Protein backbone atom coordinates (compact mmCIF):
# COMPACT_ATOMS: atom_id res chain seq x y z
CA UNK A 1 0.00 0.00 0.00
CA UNK A 2 2.82 2.32 0.96
CA UNK A 3 4.74 1.75 -2.26
CA UNK A 4 1.53 2.24 -4.26
CA UNK A 5 1.09 5.63 -2.62
CA UNK A 6 4.69 6.58 -3.33
CA UNK A 7 4.51 5.40 -6.94
CA UNK A 8 1.18 7.12 -7.51
CA UNK A 9 2.46 10.34 -5.98
CA UNK A 10 5.68 10.15 -8.01
CA UNK A 11 3.64 10.09 -11.22
CA UNK A 12 0.79 12.40 -10.23
CA UNK A 13 2.95 15.15 -8.71
CA UNK A 14 3.85 16.34 -12.24
CA UNK A 15 0.33 17.01 -13.51
CA UNK A 16 -0.42 18.62 -10.14
CA UNK A 17 2.60 20.89 -10.56
CA UNK A 18 1.49 21.63 -14.12
CA UNK A 19 -1.93 22.64 -12.80
CA UNK A 20 -0.28 25.02 -10.32
CA UNK A 21 1.85 26.66 -13.02
CA UNK A 22 -1.17 26.92 -15.31
CA UNK A 23 -3.02 28.74 -12.53
CA UNK A 24 -0.14 31.16 -11.98
CA UNK A 25 0.21 31.92 -15.69
CA UNK A 26 -3.53 32.45 -16.21
CA UNK A 27 -3.72 34.71 -13.15
CA UNK A 28 -0.74 36.77 -14.38
CA UNK A 29 -2.15 37.13 -17.89
CA UNK A 30 -5.56 38.16 -16.51
CA UNK A 31 -3.80 40.80 -14.39
CA UNK A 32 -1.85 42.05 -17.44
CA UNK A 33 -5.04 42.23 -19.52
CA UNK A 34 -6.76 44.30 -16.80
CA UNK A 35 -3.76 46.61 -16.52
CA UNK A 36 -3.55 47.05 -20.28
CA UNK A 37 -7.27 47.87 -20.46
CA UNK A 38 -7.16 50.35 -17.61
CA UNK A 39 -4.16 52.17 -19.10
CA UNK A 40 -5.53 51.88 -22.66
CA UNK A 41 -2.39 50.12 -23.89
CA UNK A 42 -1.90 47.05 -26.04
CA UNK A 43 -1.31 43.77 -24.23
CA UNK A 44 1.47 43.00 -26.70
Amino acid sequence: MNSELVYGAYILIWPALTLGVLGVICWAVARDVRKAKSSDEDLL
Partner: protein
Amino acid sequence: MIGPAPEGYLCFRKRGPDLNENGFTQFSTLTVLLLLAAFYGGTYLLTLLIRKDKEDTSGFMVAGHHVGFGMGAASMTATWIWAASFYAAATSGYTYGVSGPIHYGLWGALMILFIYPFGRRFRKLAPNGHTLGELIHARHGASSQMILAVSNILGSVISLMVNFTAAGALVSVLSPLSFETGVIVAGVGVLAYTLTSGFRASVFTDFAQLVALMAIAIIIIPAVLFSAGGPSVMVEGLSRLTDEQANLFSVEAILHQGAPFFVAVLAYAIGNQTISQRLFAVREKHIKSTFVTATIGYGAIVIGLGMIGLMALSVGMEPIDGKMNNLIPQMVSTYLSPVFVALFFVLVIGSLSSTADSDLSALSTIMMADVYGKNIAGDNPSPRVMMLVGRITMIVATVAGLIFASFSLDILVMLVFVGALWGAIVFPVIVSCYWDRVTNAAFTWSVVAAMALFCIARFELLEMTGLTVLFFESLASVGGAVVIGLMVFGFFGRAAGLVAGVITLAAMLVFATGFLRDYMVLVASLTAYGASAVVCTAMTLFSKERFDFDLIAQRVGDYDNVEDESYMVPEAAK
Protein backbone atom coordinates in the same frame (compact mmCIF):
# COMPACT_ATOMS: atom_id res chain seq x y z
CA MET B 1 -11.86 3.46 -21.85
CA ILE B 2 -10.63 -0.08 -21.56
CA GLY B 3 -9.61 -1.79 -18.37
CA PRO B 4 -6.21 -2.97 -17.21
CA ALA B 5 -4.42 -5.17 -19.71
CA PRO B 6 -3.94 -8.82 -18.82
CA GLU B 7 -0.40 -10.19 -18.59
CA GLY B 8 1.27 -10.40 -21.98
CA TYR B 9 -1.53 -8.58 -23.73
CA LEU B 10 0.58 -5.67 -24.82
CA CYS B 11 3.19 -7.75 -26.54
CA PHE B 12 0.58 -9.38 -28.75
CA ARG B 13 -2.02 -6.68 -29.13
CA LYS B 14 -5.33 -7.38 -30.73
CA ARG B 15 -6.67 -4.95 -33.30
CA GLY B 16 -9.77 -3.20 -32.07
CA PRO B 17 -12.36 -1.77 -34.44
CA ASP B 18 -10.82 1.71 -34.25
CA LEU B 19 -7.16 0.65 -34.38
CA ASN B 20 -5.17 0.50 -37.60
CA GLU B 21 -2.78 -2.23 -38.69
CA ASN B 22 0.00 -0.51 -36.72
CA GLY B 23 -1.96 -0.70 -33.49
CA PHE B 24 -2.82 3.00 -33.25
CA THR B 25 -6.23 4.63 -33.10
CA GLN B 26 -7.24 5.34 -36.69
CA PHE B 27 -9.00 8.59 -37.44
CA SER B 28 -10.73 9.28 -40.72
CA THR B 29 -9.28 11.80 -43.15
CA LEU B 30 -12.16 14.15 -42.38
CA THR B 31 -11.61 13.98 -38.61
CA VAL B 32 -7.92 14.81 -38.87
CA LEU B 33 -8.53 17.59 -41.38
CA LEU B 34 -11.19 19.05 -39.07
CA LEU B 35 -8.83 18.86 -36.08
CA LEU B 36 -6.06 20.58 -38.06
CA ALA B 37 -8.44 23.20 -39.42
CA ALA B 38 -9.82 23.89 -35.94
CA PHE B 39 -6.32 24.22 -34.49
CA TYR B 40 -4.70 26.36 -37.17
CA GLY B 41 -7.90 28.25 -38.01
CA GLY B 42 -8.48 29.05 -34.34
CA THR B 43 -4.87 30.12 -33.89
CA TYR B 44 -5.08 32.35 -36.96
CA LEU B 45 -8.29 33.95 -35.68
CA LEU B 46 -6.57 34.63 -32.35
CA THR B 47 -3.84 36.62 -34.07
CA LEU B 48 -6.51 38.91 -35.57
CA LEU B 49 -7.13 40.18 -32.04
CA ILE B 50 -3.65 41.73 -31.86
CA ARG B 51 -3.16 42.65 -35.51
CA LYS B 52 -2.15 46.25 -36.20
CA ASP B 53 -2.62 48.20 -39.41
CA LYS B 54 1.06 49.01 -39.41
CA GLU B 55 3.48 46.75 -37.58
CA ASP B 56 6.76 48.29 -36.43
CA THR B 57 10.09 46.45 -36.32
CA SER B 58 10.32 46.51 -32.54
CA GLY B 59 6.89 44.89 -32.19
CA PHE B 60 7.64 42.39 -34.94
CA MET B 61 10.96 41.34 -33.37
CA VAL B 62 10.54 41.69 -29.58
CA ALA B 63 6.96 42.89 -28.96
CA GLY B 64 8.26 46.34 -28.00
CA HIS B 65 10.32 44.93 -25.06
CA HIS B 66 7.28 44.94 -22.79
CA VAL B 67 5.92 41.41 -22.65
CA GLY B 68 4.39 40.79 -19.21
CA PHE B 69 5.19 37.98 -16.78
CA GLY B 70 2.27 35.69 -17.65
CA MET B 71 2.60 35.92 -21.43
CA GLY B 72 6.39 35.72 -21.16
CA ALA B 73 6.37 32.60 -18.97
CA ALA B 74 3.76 30.94 -21.19
CA SER B 75 5.70 31.77 -24.33
CA MET B 76 9.04 30.59 -22.96
CA THR B 77 7.50 27.31 -21.77
CA ALA B 78 5.61 26.66 -24.99
CA THR B 79 8.62 27.48 -27.14
CA TRP B 80 10.95 25.18 -25.24
CA ILE B 81 8.50 22.28 -25.44
CA TRP B 82 8.60 20.71 -28.87
CA ALA B 83 7.24 17.44 -30.14
CA ALA B 84 10.51 15.64 -29.43
CA SER B 85 10.27 16.64 -25.75
CA PHE B 86 7.46 14.16 -25.09
CA TYR B 87 8.86 11.35 -27.18
CA ALA B 88 12.39 11.69 -25.80
CA ALA B 89 11.21 11.97 -22.18
CA ALA B 90 9.04 8.86 -22.61
CA THR B 91 11.94 7.06 -24.27
CA SER B 92 14.14 8.01 -21.33
CA GLY B 93 11.52 6.71 -18.88
CA TYR B 94 11.21 3.46 -20.81
CA THR B 95 14.97 2.98 -21.15
CA TYR B 96 16.28 4.16 -17.78
CA GLY B 97 13.22 3.50 -15.63
CA VAL B 98 12.26 5.50 -12.57
CA SER B 99 14.84 8.28 -12.97
CA GLY B 100 14.65 8.45 -16.78
CA PRO B 101 12.00 11.17 -17.22
CA ILE B 102 13.77 13.35 -14.66
CA HIS B 103 17.09 13.01 -16.45
CA TYR B 104 15.43 14.35 -19.59
CA GLY B 105 13.06 16.99 -18.23
CA LEU B 106 15.13 18.38 -15.39
CA TRP B 107 18.16 19.29 -17.47
CA GLY B 108 16.02 20.69 -20.25
CA ALA B 109 14.28 22.85 -17.65
CA LEU B 110 17.58 24.02 -16.20
CA MET B 111 18.56 25.34 -19.62
CA ILE B 112 15.86 27.97 -19.09
CA LEU B 113 16.83 28.63 -15.49
CA PHE B 114 20.60 29.00 -15.90
CA ILE B 115 20.39 31.53 -18.71
CA TYR B 116 18.35 34.16 -16.87
CA PRO B 117 21.17 35.67 -14.76
CA PHE B 118 23.14 36.16 -17.98
CA GLY B 119 19.99 37.38 -19.68
CA ARG B 120 19.69 40.18 -17.16
CA ARG B 121 23.25 41.19 -17.98
CA PHE B 122 22.52 41.11 -21.73
CA ARG B 123 19.49 43.29 -21.14
CA LYS B 124 21.43 45.73 -18.99
CA LEU B 125 24.11 46.08 -21.66
CA ALA B 126 21.67 46.35 -24.58
CA PRO B 127 18.26 47.50 -23.28
CA ASN B 128 16.97 47.98 -26.83
CA GLY B 129 18.51 44.82 -28.28
CA HIS B 130 16.70 42.24 -30.37
CA THR B 131 19.32 39.52 -30.73
CA LEU B 132 22.41 38.40 -28.87
CA GLY B 133 24.24 38.85 -32.18
CA GLU B 134 23.55 42.60 -32.10
CA LEU B 135 25.12 42.80 -28.66
CA ILE B 136 28.19 40.86 -29.81
CA HIS B 137 28.39 43.03 -32.94
CA ALA B 138 28.47 46.13 -30.74
CA ARG B 139 31.06 44.52 -28.49
CA HIS B 140 33.36 42.91 -31.07
CA GLY B 141 32.26 43.49 -34.66
CA ALA B 142 31.01 41.46 -37.59
CA SER B 143 33.01 38.22 -37.45
CA SER B 144 32.03 37.33 -33.88
CA GLN B 145 28.44 38.37 -34.55
CA MET B 146 28.19 36.22 -37.67
CA ILE B 147 29.52 33.16 -35.84
CA LEU B 148 26.68 33.58 -33.37
CA ALA B 149 24.11 34.36 -36.08
CA VAL B 150 25.08 31.31 -38.16
CA SER B 151 24.84 29.02 -35.13
CA ASN B 152 21.40 30.49 -34.33
CA ILE B 153 20.18 30.10 -37.92
CA LEU B 154 21.33 26.47 -38.17
CA GLY B 155 19.67 25.67 -34.86
CA SER B 156 16.35 27.19 -35.86
CA VAL B 157 16.30 25.58 -39.32
CA ILE B 158 16.98 22.17 -37.77
CA SER B 159 14.25 22.79 -35.21
CA LEU B 160 11.77 23.80 -37.93
CA MET B 161 12.56 20.70 -39.92
CA VAL B 162 12.20 18.38 -36.91
CA ASN B 163 8.86 19.90 -35.93
CA PHE B 164 7.41 19.68 -39.43
CA THR B 165 8.66 16.09 -39.63
CA ALA B 166 6.90 15.30 -36.35
CA ALA B 167 3.66 16.72 -37.74
CA GLY B 168 3.95 14.58 -40.87
CA ALA B 169 4.70 11.45 -38.84
CA LEU B 170 1.77 12.00 -36.47
CA VAL B 171 -0.73 12.66 -39.25
CA SER B 172 0.42 9.62 -41.24
CA VAL B 173 0.28 7.32 -38.20
CA LEU B 174 -3.18 8.35 -37.00
CA SER B 175 -4.96 8.86 -40.34
CA PRO B 176 -4.94 7.74 -43.97
CA LEU B 177 -3.33 11.06 -44.90
CA SER B 178 0.25 11.00 -46.15
CA PHE B 179 3.35 12.17 -44.30
CA GLU B 180 3.82 14.98 -46.83
CA THR B 181 0.28 16.25 -46.23
CA GLY B 182 0.95 16.57 -42.50
CA VAL B 183 4.23 18.38 -43.16
CA ILE B 184 2.64 20.86 -45.57
CA VAL B 185 -0.42 21.59 -43.38
CA ALA B 186 1.81 22.27 -40.37
CA GLY B 187 4.18 24.49 -42.36
CA VAL B 188 1.47 26.53 -44.03
CA GLY B 189 -0.59 26.73 -40.84
CA VAL B 190 2.30 28.08 -38.75
CA LEU B 191 3.39 30.53 -41.44
CA ALA B 192 -0.16 31.84 -41.90
CA TYR B 193 -0.59 32.99 -38.31
CA THR B 194 3.01 34.22 -37.81
CA LEU B 195 3.65 36.14 -41.02
CA THR B 196 1.76 39.34 -40.28
CA SER B 197 2.58 40.13 -36.67
CA GLY B 198 5.81 38.12 -36.19
CA PHE B 199 6.96 37.75 -32.60
CA ARG B 200 3.80 39.34 -31.19
CA ALA B 201 1.72 36.63 -32.86
CA SER B 202 4.15 33.98 -31.68
CA VAL B 203 3.88 35.07 -28.03
CA PHE B 204 0.11 35.54 -28.10
CA THR B 205 -0.59 32.16 -29.68
CA ASP B 206 2.00 30.51 -27.39
CA PHE B 207 -0.21 31.44 -24.45
CA ALA B 208 -3.30 29.82 -25.96
CA GLN B 209 -1.32 26.79 -27.12
CA LEU B 210 0.29 26.35 -23.71
CA VAL B 211 -3.04 26.52 -21.87
CA ALA B 212 -4.38 23.77 -24.15
CA LEU B 213 -1.16 21.78 -23.85
CA MET B 214 -1.09 21.97 -20.06
CA ALA B 215 -4.79 21.17 -19.70
CA ILE B 216 -4.39 18.10 -21.90
CA ALA B 217 -1.26 16.95 -20.03
CA ILE B 218 -3.09 17.36 -16.71
CA ILE B 219 -5.87 15.09 -17.98
CA ILE B 220 -3.91 12.52 -19.98
CA ILE B 221 -1.26 11.53 -17.40
CA PRO B 222 -3.67 10.44 -14.64
CA ALA B 223 -6.04 9.01 -17.26
CA VAL B 224 -3.35 6.66 -18.59
CA LEU B 225 -2.25 5.73 -15.07
CA PHE B 226 -5.71 4.76 -13.84
CA SER B 227 -6.87 3.21 -17.12
CA ALA B 228 -3.82 0.97 -17.05
CA GLY B 229 -4.81 -0.31 -13.63
CA GLY B 230 -3.61 2.40 -11.28
CA PRO B 231 -0.55 2.50 -9.02
CA SER B 232 -1.09 -1.07 -7.76
CA VAL B 233 -0.64 -2.55 -11.26
CA MET B 234 2.37 -0.29 -11.82
CA VAL B 235 3.99 -1.40 -8.56
CA GLU B 236 3.46 -5.04 -9.54
CA GLY B 237 5.17 -4.23 -12.83
CA LEU B 238 8.24 -2.85 -11.10
CA SER B 239 9.51 -6.43 -10.87
CA ARG B 240 10.13 -6.19 -14.63
CA LEU B 241 12.66 -3.41 -14.08
CA THR B 242 16.38 -4.07 -13.79
CA ASP B 243 18.18 -2.88 -10.67
CA GLU B 244 19.42 0.19 -12.54
CA GLN B 245 15.95 1.00 -13.87
CA ALA B 246 14.43 0.70 -10.40
CA ASN B 247 17.07 2.98 -8.87
CA LEU B 248 16.16 6.68 -8.61
CA PHE B 249 19.88 7.48 -8.52
CA SER B 250 20.88 5.23 -11.41
CA VAL B 251 24.48 5.87 -12.49
CA GLU B 252 23.68 4.52 -15.93
CA ALA B 253 20.89 7.07 -16.36
CA ILE B 254 23.13 9.88 -15.13
CA LEU B 255 26.04 8.99 -17.41
CA HIS B 256 24.06 8.24 -20.55
CA GLN B 257 21.13 10.65 -20.26
CA GLY B 258 21.81 13.23 -17.56
CA ALA B 259 25.48 14.11 -18.14
CA PRO B 260 25.29 14.87 -21.89
CA PHE B 261 22.25 17.07 -21.21
CA PHE B 262 23.96 18.77 -18.31
CA VAL B 263 26.91 19.64 -20.56
CA ALA B 264 24.49 21.17 -23.05
CA VAL B 265 22.56 23.28 -20.53
CA LEU B 266 24.29 26.59 -21.25
CA ALA B 267 25.10 25.82 -24.88
CA TYR B 268 21.48 25.34 -25.90
CA ALA B 269 20.41 28.51 -24.13
CA ILE B 270 23.18 30.66 -25.61
CA GLY B 271 22.90 29.14 -29.07
CA ASN B 272 19.17 29.56 -29.36
CA GLN B 273 17.74 32.87 -30.51
CA THR B 274 14.26 31.81 -29.37
CA ILE B 275 15.49 32.14 -25.78
CA SER B 276 17.49 35.34 -26.19
CA GLN B 277 14.60 36.90 -28.11
CA ARG B 278 12.40 36.41 -25.04
CA LEU B 279 15.14 37.75 -22.77
CA PHE B 280 15.00 40.96 -24.82
CA ALA B 281 11.19 40.95 -25.05
CA VAL B 282 10.08 40.44 -21.45
CA ARG B 283 9.92 43.53 -19.23
CA GLU B 284 13.30 43.72 -17.50
CA LYS B 285 11.86 43.45 -13.99
CA HIS B 286 10.01 40.26 -14.94
CA ILE B 287 12.94 38.32 -16.41
CA LYS B 288 13.59 36.30 -13.24
CA SER B 289 9.96 35.43 -12.45
CA THR B 290 9.28 34.61 -16.09
CA PHE B 291 12.20 32.24 -16.48
CA VAL B 292 11.75 30.56 -13.08
CA THR B 293 8.08 29.90 -13.84
CA ALA B 294 8.94 28.59 -17.30
CA THR B 295 11.54 26.29 -15.74
CA ILE B 296 8.96 24.74 -13.41
CA GLY B 297 6.30 24.58 -16.12
CA TYR B 298 8.58 22.91 -18.65
CA GLY B 299 9.91 20.43 -16.10
CA ALA B 300 6.45 19.46 -14.85
CA ILE B 301 4.93 18.91 -18.31
CA VAL B 302 7.85 17.07 -19.86
CA ILE B 303 8.68 14.89 -16.84
CA GLY B 304 4.98 14.15 -16.41
CA LEU B 305 4.56 12.99 -20.01
CA GLY B 306 7.86 11.10 -19.69
CA MET B 307 6.19 9.10 -16.91
CA ILE B 308 4.04 7.50 -19.63
CA GLY B 309 7.26 5.84 -20.81
CA LEU B 310 7.86 4.53 -17.28
CA MET B 311 4.27 3.27 -17.17
CA ALA B 312 4.81 1.51 -20.50
CA LEU B 313 7.87 -0.19 -19.04
CA SER B 314 5.96 -1.17 -15.89
CA VAL B 315 3.10 -2.80 -17.80
CA GLY B 316 5.49 -4.59 -20.15
CA MET B 317 4.58 -2.77 -23.34
CA GLU B 318 6.82 -3.34 -26.34
CA PRO B 319 7.15 -0.34 -28.68
CA ILE B 320 5.64 -1.12 -32.08
CA ASP B 321 8.36 -1.87 -34.66
CA GLY B 322 10.88 -1.23 -31.87
CA LYS B 323 10.42 2.52 -32.38
CA MET B 324 10.51 4.38 -29.08
CA ASN B 325 8.61 7.33 -30.57
CA ASN B 326 5.58 5.05 -30.76
CA LEU B 327 5.41 4.64 -26.97
CA ILE B 328 3.13 7.55 -26.04
CA PRO B 329 0.70 7.19 -28.99
CA GLN B 330 0.65 3.46 -28.28
CA MET B 331 -0.15 3.91 -24.57
CA VAL B 332 -2.82 6.51 -25.32
CA SER B 333 -4.37 4.40 -28.11
CA THR B 334 -4.30 1.27 -25.94
CA TYR B 335 -5.75 2.62 -22.73
CA LEU B 336 -7.82 5.63 -23.65
CA SER B 337 -10.80 6.37 -25.86
CA PRO B 338 -10.39 8.06 -29.27
CA VAL B 339 -11.38 11.39 -27.66
CA PHE B 340 -8.17 11.28 -25.62
CA VAL B 341 -6.19 10.31 -28.70
CA ALA B 342 -7.62 13.39 -30.40
CA LEU B 343 -6.52 15.47 -27.39
CA PHE B 344 -3.05 13.92 -27.64
CA PHE B 345 -3.03 14.84 -31.33
CA VAL B 346 -3.79 18.47 -30.43
CA LEU B 347 -1.12 18.33 -27.71
CA VAL B 348 1.59 17.33 -30.18
CA ILE B 349 0.43 19.70 -32.92
CA GLY B 350 0.29 22.53 -30.36
CA SER B 351 3.76 21.84 -29.01
CA LEU B 352 5.42 21.60 -32.41
CA SER B 353 3.56 24.64 -33.76
CA SER B 354 4.53 26.85 -30.81
CA THR B 355 8.18 25.95 -31.31
CA ALA B 356 7.99 26.32 -35.09
CA ASP B 357 6.43 29.80 -34.90
CA SER B 358 9.16 30.83 -32.44
CA ASP B 359 11.80 29.54 -34.84
CA LEU B 360 10.26 31.53 -37.69
CA SER B 361 10.28 34.65 -35.51
CA ALA B 362 13.86 33.96 -34.44
CA LEU B 363 15.07 33.48 -38.00
CA SER B 364 13.31 36.58 -39.26
CA THR B 365 14.76 38.66 -36.42
CA ILE B 366 18.30 37.43 -37.08
CA MET B 367 17.96 38.30 -40.77
CA MET B 368 16.38 41.67 -39.96
CA ALA B 369 18.73 42.81 -37.22
CA ASP B 370 21.97 40.85 -37.57
CA VAL B 371 22.20 40.50 -41.33
CA TYR B 372 20.29 43.47 -42.80
CA GLY B 373 20.42 45.94 -39.89
CA LYS B 374 24.05 45.48 -38.92
CA ASN B 375 25.79 44.27 -42.06
CA ILE B 376 23.88 45.44 -45.14
CA ALA B 377 22.05 48.67 -44.34
CA GLY B 378 25.06 50.39 -42.77
CA ASP B 379 24.03 53.48 -40.84
CA ASN B 380 20.67 53.84 -42.51
CA PRO B 381 18.44 50.79 -41.99
CA SER B 382 14.95 51.26 -43.39
CA PRO B 383 12.16 49.90 -41.15
CA ARG B 384 10.07 49.13 -44.22
CA VAL B 385 12.82 47.07 -45.82
CA MET B 386 13.48 45.38 -42.50
CA MET B 387 9.87 44.23 -42.25
CA LEU B 388 10.06 42.93 -45.80
CA VAL B 389 13.28 41.07 -44.99
CA GLY B 390 11.62 39.53 -41.94
CA ARG B 391 8.54 38.31 -43.79
CA ILE B 392 10.49 37.00 -46.78
CA THR B 393 12.75 35.14 -44.33
CA MET B 394 9.72 33.49 -42.77
CA ILE B 395 8.47 32.32 -46.16
CA VAL B 396 11.89 31.06 -47.28
CA ALA B 397 12.53 29.34 -43.94
CA THR B 398 9.14 27.60 -44.07
CA VAL B 399 9.75 26.38 -47.61
CA ALA B 400 13.25 25.18 -46.63
CA GLY B 401 11.85 23.44 -43.54
CA LEU B 402 9.14 21.75 -45.63
CA ILE B 403 11.63 20.57 -48.25
CA PHE B 404 14.12 19.25 -45.68
CA ALA B 405 11.32 17.56 -43.74
CA SER B 406 9.77 16.01 -46.86
CA PHE B 407 13.08 14.48 -47.87
CA SER B 408 13.56 13.10 -44.34
CA LEU B 409 17.20 14.20 -44.44
CA ASP B 410 19.68 12.69 -42.02
CA ILE B 411 20.57 15.63 -39.83
CA LEU B 412 22.80 13.82 -37.37
CA VAL B 413 26.06 15.30 -38.70
CA MET B 414 24.54 18.77 -38.81
CA LEU B 415 23.30 18.36 -35.25
CA VAL B 416 26.75 17.27 -34.10
CA PHE B 417 28.38 20.36 -35.59
CA VAL B 418 25.73 22.78 -34.36
CA GLY B 419 25.95 21.33 -30.85
CA ALA B 420 29.72 21.74 -30.90
CA LEU B 421 29.46 25.28 -32.22
CA TRP B 422 27.04 26.18 -29.43
CA GLY B 423 29.44 24.66 -26.88
CA ALA B 424 32.37 26.57 -28.38
CA ILE B 425 30.67 29.97 -28.19
CA VAL B 426 29.40 29.71 -24.60
CA PHE B 427 32.56 30.96 -22.87
CA PRO B 428 33.48 33.71 -25.38
CA VAL B 429 29.92 35.09 -25.46
CA ILE B 430 29.48 35.19 -21.69
CA VAL B 431 32.96 36.42 -20.85
CA SER B 432 32.70 39.15 -23.51
CA CYS B 433 29.82 40.62 -21.53
CA TYR B 434 31.79 40.88 -18.30
CA TRP B 435 35.52 41.19 -19.11
CA ASP B 436 36.52 44.40 -20.85
CA ARG B 437 39.78 42.99 -22.24
CA VAL B 438 38.28 40.29 -24.52
CA THR B 439 38.94 41.12 -28.17
CA ASN B 440 37.24 40.20 -31.43
CA ALA B 441 40.30 38.09 -32.34
CA ALA B 442 40.13 36.24 -29.03
CA PHE B 443 36.42 35.51 -29.61
CA THR B 444 36.83 34.39 -33.20
CA TRP B 445 39.99 32.33 -32.88
CA SER B 446 38.83 30.63 -29.71
CA VAL B 447 35.73 29.36 -31.55
CA VAL B 448 37.78 28.27 -34.58
CA ALA B 449 40.32 26.43 -32.40
CA ALA B 450 37.57 24.81 -30.34
CA MET B 451 35.77 23.54 -33.46
CA ALA B 452 39.02 22.11 -34.87
CA LEU B 453 39.86 20.31 -31.63
CA PHE B 454 36.27 19.13 -31.29
CA CYS B 455 36.42 17.51 -34.73
CA ILE B 456 39.69 15.74 -33.87
CA ALA B 457 38.16 14.31 -30.69
CA ARG B 458 34.67 13.58 -32.02
CA PHE B 459 35.80 11.78 -35.16
CA GLU B 460 39.05 10.48 -33.59
CA LEU B 461 41.15 11.96 -36.40
CA LEU B 462 44.21 11.24 -34.27
CA GLU B 463 44.88 7.94 -32.54
CA MET B 464 43.38 8.44 -29.08
CA THR B 465 46.14 6.87 -27.03
CA GLY B 466 48.94 8.00 -24.71
CA LEU B 467 49.58 11.73 -24.46
CA THR B 468 47.06 12.58 -27.16
CA VAL B 469 44.07 11.21 -25.28
CA LEU B 470 45.45 12.64 -22.03
CA PHE B 471 45.60 16.07 -23.71
CA PHE B 472 41.96 15.83 -24.75
CA GLU B 473 40.89 14.53 -21.34
CA SER B 474 42.64 17.53 -19.78
CA LEU B 475 40.87 19.92 -22.17
CA ALA B 476 37.58 18.18 -21.39
CA SER B 477 38.30 18.64 -17.70
CA VAL B 478 38.74 22.36 -18.33
CA GLY B 479 35.44 22.22 -20.24
CA GLY B 480 33.72 20.64 -17.23
CA ALA B 481 35.18 23.34 -15.00
CA VAL B 482 33.91 26.02 -17.41
CA VAL B 483 30.38 24.60 -17.36
CA ILE B 484 30.19 24.41 -13.56
CA GLY B 485 32.10 27.65 -13.04
CA LEU B 486 29.84 29.65 -15.37
CA MET B 487 26.67 28.24 -13.80
CA VAL B 488 27.83 29.16 -10.31
CA PHE B 489 29.11 32.53 -11.56
CA GLY B 490 25.69 33.36 -13.00
CA PHE B 491 23.97 33.01 -9.64
CA PHE B 492 26.66 33.72 -7.04
CA GLY B 493 29.24 35.96 -8.70
CA ARG B 494 32.84 35.85 -9.83
CA ALA B 495 34.57 34.57 -6.68
CA ALA B 496 32.14 31.67 -6.20
CA GLY B 497 32.34 30.84 -9.91
CA LEU B 498 36.13 30.75 -9.85
CA VAL B 499 36.20 28.56 -6.74
CA ALA B 500 33.64 26.16 -8.24
CA GLY B 501 35.58 26.05 -11.50
CA VAL B 502 38.91 25.34 -9.81
CA ILE B 503 37.42 22.61 -7.59
CA THR B 504 35.71 21.01 -10.61
CA LEU B 505 38.93 21.17 -12.63
CA ALA B 506 40.95 19.54 -9.84
CA ALA B 507 38.32 16.84 -9.31
CA MET B 508 38.08 16.10 -13.02
CA LEU B 509 41.85 15.97 -13.51
CA VAL B 510 42.09 13.48 -10.65
CA PHE B 511 39.04 11.32 -11.35
CA ALA B 512 38.21 11.78 -15.04
CA THR B 513 41.59 11.32 -16.71
CA GLY B 514 41.91 7.69 -17.72
CA PHE B 515 38.12 7.31 -17.43
CA LEU B 516 36.60 9.86 -19.80
CA ARG B 517 38.37 8.26 -22.81
CA ASP B 518 35.67 5.58 -22.76
CA TYR B 519 33.10 8.30 -23.50
CA MET B 520 34.64 10.12 -26.48
CA VAL B 521 31.38 11.86 -27.45
CA LEU B 522 31.32 13.49 -24.03
CA VAL B 523 35.06 14.27 -24.26
CA ALA B 524 34.52 15.98 -27.60
CA SER B 525 31.64 18.11 -26.29
CA LEU B 526 33.59 19.19 -23.25
CA THR B 527 36.65 19.84 -25.43
CA ALA B 528 34.67 22.47 -27.33
CA TYR B 529 33.99 24.32 -24.06
CA GLY B 530 37.49 23.83 -22.69
CA ALA B 531 39.45 24.74 -25.82
CA SER B 532 37.49 27.94 -26.46
CA ALA B 533 37.94 28.96 -22.82
CA VAL B 534 41.70 28.32 -22.87
CA VAL B 535 42.33 30.11 -26.19
CA CYS B 536 40.00 33.01 -25.39
CA THR B 537 41.53 33.53 -21.95
CA ALA B 538 45.13 33.26 -23.21
CA MET B 539 44.60 35.74 -26.06
CA THR B 540 42.70 38.10 -23.76
CA LEU B 541 45.50 38.12 -21.21
CA PHE B 542 47.87 39.35 -23.93
CA SER B 543 45.43 42.10 -24.88
CA LYS B 544 45.96 45.70 -23.81
CA GLU B 545 42.49 46.80 -25.00
CA ARG B 546 39.86 48.05 -22.62
CA PHE B 547 36.24 48.14 -23.79
CA ASP B 548 33.70 50.62 -22.48
CA PHE B 549 30.53 48.55 -21.94
CA ASP B 550 28.36 51.69 -22.10
CA LEU B 551 29.07 51.78 -25.84
CA ILE B 552 26.89 48.70 -26.37
CA ALA B 553 23.70 50.50 -25.31
CA GLN B 554 24.58 53.36 -27.67
CA ARG B 555 25.30 51.02 -30.58
CA VAL B 556 22.28 48.73 -30.20
CA GLY B 557 19.15 50.75 -30.77
CA ASP B 558 15.63 50.85 -32.07
CA TYR B 559 15.20 50.73 -35.86
CA ASP B 560 11.77 52.33 -36.08
CA ASN B 561 12.82 55.95 -35.48
CA VAL B 562 15.32 55.93 -38.32
CA GLU B 563 14.28 59.36 -39.57
CA ASP B 564 15.06 60.71 -36.16
CA GLU B 565 18.83 61.11 -35.79
CA SER B 566 18.64 59.90 -32.22
CA TYR B 567 17.38 56.46 -33.26
CA MET B 568 20.53 54.76 -32.03
CA VAL B 569 20.17 56.18 -28.54
CA PRO B 570 18.50 53.69 -26.19
CA GLU B 571 15.20 54.63 -24.60
CA ALA B 572 16.79 54.61 -21.17
CA ALA B 573 19.33 57.22 -22.22
CA LYS B 574 16.84 59.62 -23.85
